[in-house]
Structures are given as structure tokens and as C-alpha cells.
């Protein structure tokens, strides 16, 4: 397949070749796993649920459970009402979750099942919660699905308590990130001494320790109590506009909580902005731990800047991550020459281009693009480094370019989901990876007489 990509670019209207995105329900399923003791339920055919579980299992290397309405021909003709009713009965009888989070598929959306009304008719055991998000696969991407599910959490749970002015906490919506990233965000907020409610929280769910006992509902996840209480917080910080902003806006509409839409805190500036926003809101001071981490990061950047300054880089993947990574790459003196996301949304192009403008650079930028287009760009203007998910590996192989694996999904490497790319410590890790990828390449390509111990 590696020689199938021609350099000559012709616009395509209908054909997608090697997608840089996937469909809404998987994002919704991942978001739902961030609620404690929640069973995601997929309302559609079995295949969808099976694919999503498989994909998430491969990325996290953790068991991922979710149930399905198991549509057959009958359900797609007569509607999925009976299936969903039976499904809920069976789910509570067998799996006993605290919460069931239903996502729809292209099938159930097209036949027009009215999920909220079906839920309304079902006898739900006391103390249990069932809610749904509309996630048609033919709209947006997995990031849209994630965003829709988080917004649905707010709609269903968040309430302003009577007579309560504020609980003094800050809501944090970390976005479509790994458990390791979530732990880093918590570390920062805790270091600042700020009380918070964070959702969805997959840490402790998809990076749970091994005990020899399989737990269907591991200890982690945002509790229902916290989700409810998010309606009493003093503000909401959404980290990334694509995956998290809608939920923050919904909280504003529903409970008058002021939303702050920030970049995903990847790199120095975005992490600074995140911390400064928290300080502005609470009046707390930056503790030495964070000062120290920042200082270490800048020190590392000074030590290594010659490794990557002026290097051309292609960045692709999910929009919030790509936006933040582009900003960070610019601050490292790298030149992002191709920047692409599969997720549709004009804000992506605008945001990337305004950062490039400021840096006096030009680049190929595309939203709703595919990996084939990225490959063509690279054939026309080669880069020194690729940054993105596992799907870039064939381009990396064909063009002999190092690949820094970042984002979702990463199917061909392990342990990545335990470590953060967010915060100052995450930035240090990214620098280490970029430097090493480029230096490994240099060692490989250097002739024997020029190889050196010290670089």
C-alpha cells in the first residue's frame, strides 16, 4: 500500500481514503466509562458495540465492557423500543451498574427511536440512573460523540441545590485524554489546593491495578454525587473546545455556572494558562512544586532546543490535542508544515492558522481530512517528524520518517495511557520523546566515522 499514494493532489468529493477519525458512539462509550459504576449501552446492532469495545481494549489494554440492544431485522423495521426495554431489564438483573449511559448508533438514529421517552416508560430500580446521548455516526466524529455524552451527563445530573450558593469547587472537564493525563490534571489542581469536580474521569477505571480479581466496575470514575454537585460549583474549566466546551456551556445554561474554554494544557503556555485561570478564580497561590516543575521544563527546553529547532513536523489527530501540540511545537522552535484533523469543525483551521500567522509561518491545514491527504502533502513537502496516532505508521514507514505516537488510538505500543502528555511533566515527556526520536534517527543515519557518544 505504501507505493499507492501519488504525489499529485486531486480534490476528492466522496471518497475517503484511510480515515483520520472514527464515529460518534465510541467517543460516547469512552466518556461514559468515566462515571463510577457506569455501564455504557449501545443502542443499535451488535457489531458497533463489539468494534468499540475492541478498539478501546486495544488502546488501553484493559477490559472494556458495554452492552448492546442487539438489533435484528425486526427491530430496525418496528423500532428498537422492545429491545431497549428488555436490555435495561437484563442489564440491571445481570450486571447491576449504578448508571447506564445509552448512546445511539446510525441505525437507531435513522429509524428514529425516541430514547428519552423509552427510558421514561421503563421501571428503573431505585437509586439507579439511566440517561442517553444522541450520537449518530454520520455526524461529526468520535470527538463529537464524546462531547455529546459529556453534555448529556450535565443535562441529566447537574442540579443547582436549593439555597446553595456555591460548593466552592471548580468543575474541570479534561476532554478525550488518557487516564494518565487525567491524573496529571488532578495533580496540578491538587497542588494548587483547589477543591474540584472532574468529569468524566477514566483514571482508576481504565488504568486500574491488578489484584487477580476482575472488577466490572473498578474504583475510579466520577461519582453520581459529584456529577450532581457540579451544578453548585463556582466555575467550569473546559480543557479543549471540541471535546469539552458544549458541556461547559450546558452547565451555564442549566445552572448559571461560568464556563472558561481553554486549550488542552499541553506544553508550557497552555499549562500556564490553565494554572493562571485556576488562580484567578480562587485566589490561591502557585506552590513551589509547580514552580519547580515549570522551571525544570524550561531548563530541559534550553538544554535540548538545538535538537529540534527548525525541524519540520506534521501533526495529525484529534482537534484539541493537535491544536495544543501545534502551539507547543511552535514554542520549541519547530515548524509545523502539515496540520490535519479528521474531525469536522471550522474552528480548527482558524485556530491553527492564527497561531501560524503569529509565528510568521504558513502550512497545510485541514479539518475533516484523511491520512491519504496527509501522505500526499508529505510527499510534496517532506518532514523530519510525524506526531500522531498509530495510523501514521505506514506513512512513517513509506517515507522513512520517525513517528512520535500521541493521541487516540495507539494500538501498536503499550503503557502510553499510564503517562501524561499534559502539564509540565507531560511536556517534559514529549520533549524527551521528540529529542530521542530525532537523535535515534541521527545515530542510525550517521556514518561510522562521525558517530559520537555525546550529542
Amino acid at each position: 500500500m505504501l507505493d499507492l499514494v501519488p504525489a499529485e493532489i486531486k480534490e476528492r468529493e466522496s471518497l475517503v481514503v484511510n480515515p483520520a477519525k472514527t464515529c460518534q458512539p465510541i467517543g460516547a462509550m469512552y466518556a461514559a466509562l468515566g462515571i463510577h459504576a457506569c455501564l455504557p449501552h449501545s443502542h443499535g446492532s451488535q457489531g458497533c458495540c463489539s468494534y468499540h469495545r475492541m478498539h478501546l481494549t486495544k488502546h488501553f489494554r484493559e477490559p472494556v465492557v458495554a452492552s448492546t440492544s442487539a438489533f435484528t431485522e425486526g427491530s430496525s423495521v418496528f423500532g428498537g423500543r422492545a429491545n431497549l426495554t428488555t436490555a435495561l431489564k437484563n442489564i440491571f438483573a445481570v450486571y447491576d451498574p449504578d448508571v447506564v449511559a445509552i448512546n445511539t448508533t446510525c441505525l437507531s438514529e435513522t429509524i428514529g427511536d425516541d430514547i428519552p421517552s423509552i427510558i421514561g416508560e421503563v421501571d428503573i430500580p431505585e437509586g439507579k440512573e439511566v440517561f442517553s446521548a444522541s450520537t449518530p455516526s454520520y455526524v461529526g466524529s468520535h470527538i463529537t460523540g464524546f462531547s455529546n455524552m459529556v453534555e448529556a451527563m450535565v443535562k441529566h445530573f447537574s442540579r443547582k441545590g436549593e439555597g446553595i450558593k456555591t460548593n466552592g469547587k471548580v468543575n474541570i472537564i479534561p476532554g478525550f485524554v488518557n487516564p494518565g493525563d487525567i491524573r496529571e490534571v488532578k495533580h496540578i489542581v491538587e497542588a494548587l489546593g483547589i477543591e474540584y469536580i472532574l468529569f468524566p474521569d477514566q483514571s482508576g477505571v481504565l488504568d486500574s491495578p491488578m489484584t487477580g480479581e476482575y472488577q466490572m466496575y473498578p474504583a475510579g470514575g466520577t461519582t453520581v454525587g459529584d456529577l450532581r454537585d457540579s451544578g453548585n460549583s463556582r466555575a467550569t474549566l473546559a480543557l479543549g473546545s471540541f471535546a469539552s466546551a458544549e458541556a461547559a456551556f450546558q452547565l451555564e445554561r442549566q445552572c448559571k455556572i461560568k464556563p472558561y474554554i481553554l486549550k488542552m494544557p499541553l506544553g508550557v503556555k497552555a499549562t500556564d494558562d490553565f494554572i493562571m485561570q485556576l488562580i484567578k478564580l480562587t485566589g490561591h497561590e502557585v506552590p513551589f512544586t509547580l514552580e519547580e516543575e515549570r522551571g525544570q521544563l524550561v531548563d530541559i527546553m534550553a538544554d535540548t532546543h538545538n535538537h529540534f529547532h527548525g525541524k519540520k513536523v506534521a501533526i495529525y489527530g484529534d482537534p484539541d490535542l493537535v491544536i495544543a501540540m501545534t502551539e507547543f511545537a511552535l514554542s520549541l522552535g519547530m515548524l509545523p508544515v502539515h496540520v490535519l484533523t479528521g474531525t469536522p469543525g471550522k474552528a480548527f483551521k482558524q485556530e491553527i492558522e492564527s497561531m501560524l500567522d503569529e509565528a510568521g509561518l504558513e502550512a497545510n491545514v485541514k479539518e475533516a481530512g484523511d491520512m491519504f491527504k496527509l501522505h500526499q502533502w508529505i510527499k510534496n513537502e517532506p518532514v523530519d517528524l510525524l506526531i500522531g496516532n498509530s495510523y501514521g505508521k505506514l506513512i512513517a514507514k513509506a517515507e522513512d520518517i520517525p513517528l512520535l505516537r500521541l493521541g487516540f488510538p495507539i494500538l501498536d505500543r503499550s503503557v502510553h495511557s499510564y503517562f501524561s502528555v499534559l502539564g509540565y511533566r507531560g511536556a517534559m515527556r514529549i520533549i524527551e520523546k521528540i529529542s530521542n526520536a530525532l537523535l535515534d534517527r541521527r545515530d542510525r543515519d550517521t556514518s561510522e566515522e562521525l558517530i559520537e557518544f555525546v550529542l
Partner: protein
Amino acid sequence: MIRSSSIKALEERKGFIITNEKTVEKDIKCNEDSLAGVVSQRACVYSGARVVLNPITDAYHLVHGPIGCASYTWDIRGSLSSGAEVYRNSFSTDLGEKDIIFGGECKLSLAIKELVERYQPELIFVYSTCVVGVIGDDLSAVCKSAEREYGIRVVPVQSTGFAGNKISGYRAACDALMDLIKENNNPAEEKEGINILGDYNLAAEMWILQGYFQQLGIKVVAKFTGDSSYQEIKKAAKAKLNIVQCAGSMGYLGKEMEKEFGIPFIKVSFFGIKDTIDSLRKIADFLGDRQLKDRVEKFVRKKSVKVKQELEFYRQRLKGSRAAIYVGGGFKAISLIKQFNDLGIETVMVGTQTGKKEEYREMKELSKEGTVILDDANPSELENFMKERGADILVGGVKDRALAYKMGIAFCDHNHERKHPLSGFEGVINFAKELDMTINSPVWQLLRSDLND
């Protein structure tokens, strides 16, 4: 006295789970739709069709549907190719909201046009997905008109996700294949050699078989579908015999080819020494040549002596272990029980997603009293039975790996993801090696002690 399972199961699930009691004549329930609300391991019609056809290396596999269906099945099998690499791309119409409302036929026509303009393909498979089935796009009409316009084969695969189960998808794929084979059938031509059905060249397994047949002087006409090509598939009607390995996916094609072209088929299995030898003998018997039979005997003697010696080392390290099996089809489960018996490993649980009644009967025959046999299981059933029966290893697919590890149980992949060939004589050693690597890994020791000990 056999301990019956104490597992909490839904009343509706009870018939799908039995405990092996040799004196009780009772069939398991199987081949039915899954219950709504279960965490099923099963996939859909489209998935069945895609896994069967995807390995055809020079075909353009165009998925007509929203992006997910194409995304999750991009390079799904890890089937290897000795030539073309087209099949490793992911082509899709990426249907959007507008297409769902106004119909996706125009977009499909245009996508085919764009494929043709860019690549000059000879063969395109167009897969139907759930939503296409609902909005009612006429795939056949679009494909037919594209065939006329471009003078190439554009074959519709009727694989609407909800219209049955994975088995229906296998059939849809086989129907598409039959379409191609019929096209070039020349009854006057003299028949020769064999077709290999139901091997997908995972981790080079097809190449092992091809190597055997080459050494034995048996001509392979066409392979279905591991490392095959359009030109090769077109020739399939001239084979003398079809050998069917994965009967679940390709048994139907074997039957159809017998009906249509009079080519008989035999079921074979190249998993395990005994099955491999039996299969080679069956093929030689069928082709009926004395010299060939002698060659086979000589070949299996040489091979099996060597394998048995090597295997002894692993047998010592593995005997006494207890295994749980949960795989896609019955044929594989049967082979696995036999291989475990050979290695001195007791099978304590065996289940499949799509097994048939007669296959379950054979599993019952091969396994010991007390073995739990189950159809269309879900993770909590697997977990409970593995725990209850004290399994040391689970053989299964990718979704089960994480479950087994979490429970502190070893795991061996016998599905799409396997990285070492598990078929033929070489596969026997690879399988034993993998079992040893995982069952005897030092990591399990760590689990059994903690900081407070």
C-alpha cells in the same frame, strides 16, 4: 458427582450453558440471536463479510456507510500478502447527514468514480452497512451501472449489519465470491489441483500450507482468501477438490461450488499434529494417486518425528494446566481441545460465538466430564466459569485478553491478532511455545504475593 454451575445467569441464558455429563443426552442451545442488554462478544453481518473478503490483496474494499464501519475494520485481519497491498487501505463513502436524508447512491457512484480515476482497479467490493440497509440505497444497481461504465467488476456485498449475524456476513461474502468464480467457469477445461478455503494467511499460515502442497506435488489453484488475488479467484472452478479449513466462514462456499461446478469438498484442519496428518491423508486419498499417498506418508513421518521431539520439552512444562477456550467458531474450539489433550492440558471450559450443534456435540465428546460448554457467552460468564473451574489460561480473541490478565490468568490469542503461525507442524511448536511463555511467565508470581506478606 458433577458440580453444576452456581453462576448467576439469566433464565434465558440457561439453555446456552451446559456442563459436560457423558450420560446425559442434551444439546446446547446455539445459533440464535443474542439477548438485548448483554455484553455480547459477537459482531455483525458486515464484520463477517469483511473478514472473509478483506484478505484478497488486489481488491478495492469500499465501505458504503458512516466512517466507523471502515475505521474499525481497517486492515482488520493482519493477513499477509506476497504481492499487492491494496487491501490494506481503508476506502469509505463516509456518509454524512445529508446522504442519510437524501440517499447515498450519488455519493457511492462518485466514490467509485474517484476510485477508478485514481487507481484503475480491476475489482471493487462495495459493502453495505446498517444505515445503508435502512435508507434503502440500491447497491446492486449502482454497482451494475459502474461495471458498465468502467468495464471492471464492481461487486456488491449485501452485508447490512443488523440483517442477521456474522454467519450471514460470511454468506454474503461467499455469494460475492461465487459471482466472480462463475464468471470464468469453463466446464470443458480439465480439472486439476485443489482450492484452499477458509485460511486467511494470518501470520503466514497459508504459506505454510502452500509449502506442504508444493513439497507433495499438489497444485493449488486458488486460495480463499489469504494472499489471494482477483485473477486467482477467477480460476477456482477448474480445481478438482476444495479443502475447507474454517468451515464456519467457507463451508457455504464449498457447498455452493459443489452444486454449481461439481467440485467436491472435504473438511480439513491444520491445527495440531493429528489433524494436520489426517488432513493431508484425506487429501491424498481423495486425489487417489498411490505415489502421492506414499509421498504424504514419508512427509508426515519426517515432520512428526521432529515435532514430537521438540514438543516433549513443552509438554513437561505445561502438563497439568487447565485451559479455558472461547473462540469465534466451533471448528477452532474442537482443534484446540485436541491440542490441549496432546499437551496434557485439561480443558475446563469451552465456548464459541457461532458454533453449531454438531460441533458442540464433538466438543462434549472430546472434553472431560464437568467441562463447562457455552454458546455466545459474555465476559461475566467467562470470568465466573474460569474462576470456578480454576483455569490457568484462556485462549480467545482480543477483547478477552485484558479480562484474563486482570484475573491473573495466562492468555493465548487464537484470533485475528495472532502474530505467530499456529497451523501445520510448525504451528504446533509455536502454539506450545506461546502457551509456555504465558502460563510460565514469572509475572503471575508477583500477583500471588503483596506488600503485606
